[in-house]
């Protein structure tokens, strides 16, 4: 009996309980992002290895986290550009697909998209969005 107790004590000190929570993968300031349209700037940044970063997220919510469909300010090739978030690595709601990269479509100040086509599937939950977003949906090739 005593021997058993001793053994139990030893095993409890040896095992470590490490809690692992998965990474949040929020799109916030300084998070790197992938440009998904066929604009020249997007392609150049890939070639030169200067991946675009988010400088500002246009939301009124307190933790400035970018969600699907949010507008975002991006620093790309020394320029500031607006962009729409088109795919998130973060876990989403039920019927929304999860992407392996944080995808972004570049937009000019006027609201017209910089590129002429979006090469990657776009979630169809973005179809109901207002005004400027319809221009991006019109250049999209595939919906998910």
């Amino acid at each position, binding site marked *: 009996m005593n021997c058993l107790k001793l053994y139990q004590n030893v095993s409890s000190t040896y095992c470590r309980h490490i809690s692992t929570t998965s990474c949040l993968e929020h799109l916030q300031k300084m998070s790197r992002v992938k440009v998904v349209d066929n604009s020249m700037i997007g392609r150049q940044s890939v070639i030169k290895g200067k991946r675009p970063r988010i400088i500002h997220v246009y939301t009124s919510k307190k933790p400035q986290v970018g969600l699907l469909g949010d507008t975002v300010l991006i620093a790309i090739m020394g320029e500031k550009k607006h962009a729409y978030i088109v*795919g998130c690595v973060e876990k989403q709601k*039920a*019927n*929304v*697909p*999860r*992407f*392996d*990269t944080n995808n972004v479509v570049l937009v000019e100040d006027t609201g017209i998209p910089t590129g002429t086509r979006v*090469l*990657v*599937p776009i979630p169809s939950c973005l179809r109901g969005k207002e005004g400027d977003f319809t221009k991006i949906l019109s250049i999209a090739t*595939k919906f*998910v």
Partner: protein
Amino acid sequence: MKIELCSFSGFKIYPGHGKKIVKTDGRVFQFISSKAESSHMMKRNPRKINWTVLYRRKLKKGQSEEISKKRNRRTTKFRRAITGATLNDIMAKRNQKPEVRKAQREQAIRAAKEKAKAKDAQKKANKAASAKAAPKQKAAKQIHSKAPRVGGKR
């Protein structure tokens, strides 16, 4: 709502179930459960995993055997007329009696034999004519053919 199929297991995914993932190259995958998803991430081949639809189809498990047999029986022979012969002609040829066919065969054989005989006769006539023209050349040729044989034996 569209009922999709799981990319790994092949089960139907009703709305409200499962996960959808878009990979870096733009390929879209639907998974019915985390079991299917993690199997896919482990790069397992669904054709080797027993509970998937792909495996069952590949090894023909379940009801697919009966269905495939039934389909084979439905092929019917369809007799059509061709440009060379009308249906009646085809049917007549098919329904010919064996004796008639034999007689036709023998006729054909006879005709062929006669042709062959005629050809042989012509050839012989030609040979005779050429032989009379040059007999000495043939004799010379015979001597030459013997010489190389002697050298070969050594």
